[in-house]
């Protein structure tokens, strides 16, 4: 018998993640690719690579997309469900860690907190305007200190007396760090201070007043960093759980959301990996809005539009969501 497989794609500004799962929700394969400002290529690359990770005879019975590039991904692959990343993350976490009450998610450009009660999202928040509580902040500081980002967490654990790094924003923290270095603090103390600063910024900005209750799950790319995890545990006084697929939870959530769709999948097949995809901006002159409409074509055939305000082009509903 053919095995049934679901695909989930999460297109973010920093990474594009793809996950394949089978009918019982087991993860067959995960991919973590850099978007590098070229989401179409990243999505195609992801489709190509994931096809190698699933059984040859598998039938794709559902595809979900999420992340800031979810419309684009949906148009390319022919997704069955297009969902925002909050809902996707919550769905995945609830399956992996039943009974979760708090999700801390820190990705490349945003960070969020999701509060759940009885398996339902009851509150959420995302970072307002600054990036001091996100992964790119950590990346930047790691490279400034000349430490590979993978080793940052371990280094932080070696710290004896973490330094207090001041600063609301990445730029300001950086100047304080330079100062602390010059005063003669050890690198591991500075790195631990950095982790604490990120956690402090996150808790004060994103998670302010959110009533964090155990079980707490920490996910997103930054969850790889054990230093941050420990800083969270110390700041919250609660154990913090990092799920197995912490870096691709959005994509996994998209998989699980696709499972709930009962109709025949609109998946275009793995051939789209080699298809000629073109997204062109067209300035619509139909009215005073002068919308930048994105026209998406696959092998020369126009298959989707989005970005129009009036709905003239089918109103973003290129992909039937239900």
């Amino acid at each position, binding site marked *: 018998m053919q095995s049934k497989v679901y695909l989930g794609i999460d297109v973010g500004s920093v990474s594009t993640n793809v996950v394949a799962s089978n009918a019982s929700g087991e993860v067959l394969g995960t991919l973590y690719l850099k978007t590098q400002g070229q989401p179409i290529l990243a999505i195609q690359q992801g489709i190509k690579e994931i096809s190698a990770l699933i059984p040859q005879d598998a039938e794709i019975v559902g595809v979900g997309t999420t992340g800031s590039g979810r419309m684009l991904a949906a148009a390319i692959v022919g997704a069955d469900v297009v969902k925002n990343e909050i809902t996707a993350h919550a769905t995945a976490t609830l399956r992996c860690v039943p009974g979760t009450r708090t999700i801390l998610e820190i990705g490349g450009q945003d960070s969020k907190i999701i509060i759940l009660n009885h398996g339902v999202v009851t509150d959420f928040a995302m970072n307002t305007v600054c990036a001091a509580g996100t992964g790119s902040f950590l990346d930047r500081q790691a490279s400034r200190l000349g430490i590979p980002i993978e080793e940052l967490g371990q280094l932080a654990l070696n710290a004896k007396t973490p330094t207090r790094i*001041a*600063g609301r924003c990445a*730029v*300001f923290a950086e*100047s304080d760090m330079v100062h602390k270095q010059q005063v003669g603090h050890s690198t591991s103390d500075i790195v631990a201070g950095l982790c604490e600063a990120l956690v402090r910024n996150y808790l*004060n900005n994103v998670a302010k007043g959110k009533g964090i209750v155990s079980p707490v799950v920490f996910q997103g790319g930054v969850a790889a960093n054990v230093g941050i995890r420990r800083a969270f545990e110390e700041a919250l006084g609660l154990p913090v759980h990092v799920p197995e697929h912490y870096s691709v939870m959005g994509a996994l959530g998209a998989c699980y959301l696709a499972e709930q769709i009962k109709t025949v999948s609109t998946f275009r097949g793995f051939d789209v990996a080699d298809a000629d995809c073109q997204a062109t901006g067209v300035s619509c002159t139909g009215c005073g809005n002068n919308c930048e409409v994105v026209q998406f074509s696959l092998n020369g055939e126009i298959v989707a539009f989005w970005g129009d305000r009036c709905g003239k082009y089918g109103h973003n509903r290129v992909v039937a969501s239900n």
Partner: protein
Amino acid sequence: MVTIGVPRALLYYIYFPMWQRFLTDLGCKVVLSPPTNERILNLGTQATVDEVCAPVKVAFGHVLDLADKVDYVFVPRLVSVEPRAYICPKLMGLPDMVKHSGNKMPELLSPDVDLSRGKMSIARALSEARHTLGKSVWPTLRAFYLSLGENHKVEQRLMSGLTPEEAFHGTAWRRTPGVRMKVAVLGHPYNVYDPVLSMSLIEQLRRSGVDVVTAEMLPQHKIDVGLQGLSKELFWTLSKKVLGAGLYFVKTPREVDGIIVLSSFGCGLESLIADLLERNARRSEFPFMHLIGDEHSGEAGVVTRVEAFIDMVKGRSEHASNISSHGNLQHRPTSTT
């Protein structure tokens, strides 16, 4: 005896002598919170939404610090202390923000003071305070009238160059001998005199042999000189002082050698006023620096900037020539932001 806690924050730096006299005369014991420290700052930061400015966070910290030690914490709702001018929206909402912040908060003694609509509001405020504390009419009125004179008593000390803290508590500082120069430090009193929020700016200047003048050390008639010629009367009491003093210094050369404005990140009043003052200072090539601080600020950044500013002012007076008064200094005082 009823004990009343007074947070060492916000308008404490202006009205404490008056408040203290009023409350003591009414037979209350006044407990003052300690000078702002890291713990108080953290308490406040945790209890407020991130968007609130640092002085309000600090004020929350002081209220929480006093919570278990007193019967009431004195957090007046100061809307306006003169006609046609207000304090600041956040201070106007402070008691309500404290009450509804979702934290366990102490009982507040928070009379409404709104002189923008006439002096009758004082009567209401007094009766509110009187009822909360269970006092009768005459002692309350007597305490109020006696307290009115208190602020004049410290005025002399302020004019001699003492900060409010020094003037209130009778301490003094010793002048460091050496090169004399004079710099104006302008800003809301709760920024300028708070040891944490100001990052000890005044201390630091004095240690470097600089005499400091603030708007509180300036007589009202000089501030009025500064405010003359504004195209529209300001409707913020605190900003009138800052801008009035600043423009007075710009208009009266040789009074001070430079101006430092210290404000908080997210302060709505200073976002306009500091810019207005900076434009005026720049036009007359007056040395000017704007420091923006918040609860995350490190002292290191301020030290560097202040030292550079002093050097610049010194260099200018030595050469007495047309060196630019606005290097890269005033534009983005980054890490202090």
